[in-house]
């Protein structure tokens, strides 16, 4: 049974998606429990894999057991689970499960009457994301990239008003990204005759660096950058996630971009190699400057926004800069930081969007000016919000502090001081935004405890939304406290071996 775990991780949400699509037709009420069940199965399997892989090392699974597995050029469909992706699989399935539990009330109100295929699409999205994380083949990665992208276009278009336009914009950008990626894969395939990641990682270091290999690398890189909204390819993200239904945004925002970052890490350090990256002396500084620019611009634009969702979207753009920068530092602390941040940022963004969702559920919108007195109306939600923002700022002992710690350490080791400055700037900007919100939500209102001031009735979000939000927020602290264990048992084995010896 444990041998089958890797495929169960994807099969859970995939089957749930198909069944939910059918039941949505016959028995609409059934699709929700089906999807929750599928995600729960997937999460359990992924969690179990974390421990198995940490103990026994990477696992390879052959789909249908066919193909010439021991041949130099593999044809079968391979699924690989190693220390780099078990954590991501758990994060993706865990956050998806929690968000599905959280989203029920939100979907009922926001998409009243139109929610028929919502959960099927959600499940399909998660299948795509898990597929990207688990596949051992760069072409299948493309397939899963498109599964995830197509379902997210639909999930975004569920929204009202400008959602269609935003979704269409995303579709154009996303398709261009996918094309670039596929083109790059084409270059790699022509040169090496294989798409299997293990094969490629064996072959590429033995070949002399060629122009085709380089062009393939750059195209793939550009493709995933568009998908992860890396500056300057970020234009599609803020509108898409702001105008999407809150429930869609709550699952897309934390996961979709992070999985694209994982794809970049996989291409950089498994398909290609650390030596190859270090050899790109012309590109490395440029990417680091771009990362700095992503962080600075993301922070700057978040300061100029007046909508809470928009602010959160620009946070994502600056956090992407953290991870790309950390990866391209290509030293041990930098990569550790990038990999740790993959998990930490997914959790933080998820908690942030859940809290914003609670606010939107009660207030109807999330303009900063509407937040007056929100601390009295929704004390629990706002407590969760403040802790989440503290994590994003990097207040110890939350997880955000530790990712920043490793990233700054890596940048200091490599002497990339502009990246250090950008990380700190981003913290400060987030602190400004948090206290701006506290001022509006808490201070700019006549305190209800003073005699003569009007009472502000409590109007907390429903428990079914509040409990997942609080759980996710507490998770940020737990993750921070577990940093040492996580880094020493799992991430240390995910970093290229040359760096840890």
């Amino acid at each position: 049974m444990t041998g089958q775990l890797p495929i169960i991780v994807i099969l859970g949400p995939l089957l749930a998606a198909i069944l939910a699509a059918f039941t949505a037709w016959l028995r609409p009420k059934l699709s929700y429990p089906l999807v929750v069940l599928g995600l729960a199965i997937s999460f359990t399997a992924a969690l179990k894999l974390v421990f198995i892989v940490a103990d026994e090392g990477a696992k390879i699974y052959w789909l249908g057991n066919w193909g010439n597995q021991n041949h130099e050029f593999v044809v079968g469909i391979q699924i690989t689970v190693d220390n780099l992706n078990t954590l991501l699989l758990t994060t993706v399935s865990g956050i998806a499960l929690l968000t599905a539990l959280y989203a029920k009330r939100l979907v009922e109100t926001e998409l009243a009457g139109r929610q028929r295929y919502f959960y099927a699409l959600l499940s399909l999205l998660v299948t795509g994301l898990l597929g990207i994380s688990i596949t051992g083949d760069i072409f299948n990665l493309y397939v899963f990239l498109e599964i995830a992208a197509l379902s997210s276009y639909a999930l975004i278009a569920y929204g009202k008003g400008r959602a269609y336009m935003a979704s269409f914009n995303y579709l154009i950008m996303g398709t261009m990204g996918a094309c670039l990626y596929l083109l790059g894969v084409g270059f790699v395939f022509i040169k090496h005759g294989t798409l299997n990641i293990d094969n490629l990682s064996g072959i590429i270091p033995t070949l002399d660096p060629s122009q085709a290999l380089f062009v393939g690398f750059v195209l793939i890189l550009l493709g995933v950058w568009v998908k992860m909204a890396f500056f300057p390819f970020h234009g599609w993200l803020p509108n898409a996630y702001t105008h999407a239904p809150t429930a869609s945004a709550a699952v897309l925002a934390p996961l979709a971009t992070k999985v694209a970052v994982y794809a970049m890490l996989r291409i950089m350090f498994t398909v290609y190699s650390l030596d190859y990256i270090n050899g790109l002396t012309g590109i490395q500084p440029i990417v680091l400057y771009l990362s700095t620019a992503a962080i600075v611009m993301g922070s700057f634009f978040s300061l100029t926004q007046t909508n809470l969702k928009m602010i959160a979207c620009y946070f994502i753009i600056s956090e992407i800069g953290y991870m790309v920068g950390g990866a391209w530092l290509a030293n041990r602390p930098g990569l550790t930081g990038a990999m740790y941040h993959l998990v930490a940022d997914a959790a933080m963004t998820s908690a942030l969007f859940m809290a914003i969702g609670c606010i939107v559920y009660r207030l109807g919108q999330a303009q900063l000016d509407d937040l007056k007195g929100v601390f009295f109306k929704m004390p629990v939600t706002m407590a969760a919000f403040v802790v989440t923002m503290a994590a994003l700022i990097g207040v110890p002992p939350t997880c955000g502090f530790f990712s920043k710690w490793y990233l700054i350490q890596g940048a200091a080791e490599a002497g990339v001081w502009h990246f250090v400055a950008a990380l700190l700037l981003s913290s400060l900007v987030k602190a400004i935004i948090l206290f701006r919100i506290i001022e509006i939500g808490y201070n700019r209102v006549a305190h209800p405890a003073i005699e003569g001031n009007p009472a502000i009735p409590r109007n907390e979000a429903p428990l079914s939304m509040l409990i997942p939000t609080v759980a996710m927020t507490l998770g940020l602290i737990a993750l921070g406290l577990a940093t040492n264990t996580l880094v020493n048992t799992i991430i240390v084995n995910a970093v290229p071996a040359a760096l840890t010896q």
Partner: protein
Amino acid sequence: MDTIHSFTPVWVILTSSVAALLIALLGRWPNLRESCIFVAAVIKLGLLLSLAPGVLDGDLYEFEVMELLPNVSLAFRVDALGLLFALVSVSLWIPTTIFSMGLLRPLKSHAQTRFFFCFAIAISSAVGVAFSANLFTLFLFYEALSLSTYPLVTHHQDDDAIKGGRKYLTYLLGTSVALALPAMIIVYQKTGSLDFANGGVFADGTSTTLLVVLLVMFLFGFAKAGLMPFHTWLPGAMVAPAPVSALLHAVAVVKVGVFSIIRVLTGIFGVDLLANTPSLSTIVCVLAGITLIVASLIALTQDNIKSRLAYSTIGQLSYIILGIGLATKSGIAGATLHIPMHAFGKITLFLCAGAIYQACGAKCISQMHGMGRKIPLTMTAFFIGSLCVIGLPPTGGFVSKWYLLTGSLNSGQQWAFAVFLTSSLLNAAYFLPFVYKAFFSSPSDEAKWESAKEPPLLTVVPALITAMGCVLLFFFSGKLYQFADKFVELYVSK
């Protein structure tokens, strides 16, 4: 000298956190709520005193909670300096709480539960800083203190309070995140350790340029110490209610800044490195010296009592930093002693300022004519407090300044002697006219203060207690010197 594994330090920190929880739960019953604070403060003080004999024998109490990063733990270690600072903060928590009750209750101030809750958390954080075994733990509690005191600064929730609070956080969070945090990470990356150790963590031959850059980052990064030009948050924070200014902005918060700098200079850089590298020692002394003189001069120009006291605090904090920067035994001992001495003196002054305001609504020094005859008890306490800050016998301030002056003569920075003396004269110049006006000048026509009478007991008694403390510190300074001596023994090898 033993290292003792003990859970007591954690209990000491937790008592006020538990009290904070109880305060939050008992918000509806004010008497019960405030008795919680007293119980917690007494337990805390008892636990601290139980550690004192061991610490004075040279023992160290240690407790490691968990390892958060390789070789960096959340860990506590109680030495003489930490214990002394914790004792000062906790013992002053009791009179301040009495004072808060006397001030807030008659005003029917809003959100008293929030006030006492945040206060208790702030005390926990301050003691956490005092007991930190490494820079990482210290930083953690340092930030907790900034965050927990923000609601106290903005307590009035009017425009001024919001503005002051904004400045408070911008300066404190801004500098700690932008300067102290990266400096700490660079130290970790270069040396692999953040533990406070005799002789510091740097290997011989570390480049002086790097050390200078790190030193400056730390000095400005811990902006709670109020080194210029990162000092203006303190006058801004004076919008807070009087007890907050008294305990936090004369004792806990600002001393945490100075304490952090002491820890960095003695435990991360090491006194020997400081003494043997003239550029390092000079930077510390010059920055502190400038702040000392300039702050005293600005204080002279302030008419608002609390602003004058705030600038005076900025100057006095630099006494401590300058004392450490001298890197001599008596300089460090003097700096250590100046923590309790200045704390008692300055808290007395702030409590009196609050009491004066409550008695007659006066906020400015120019309104003080003849006030001494109307409210003699308050003004006497004020007089004793100002003696302590100026450094005249029979108050504790005299003792610490004595050691600081000796320390400056023994060091390579003898100009510091002149700076200390000049500043003491300036201290006298900005406090004594105040007392003179109150007792000897006759009330002016527009401000007769006919209705002025002694404020309620709950506000006067705490000021009298701390004023008495100033005098007692002079007579029991020998006991306190033992703490300073143990600290010097631990961190200065020659």
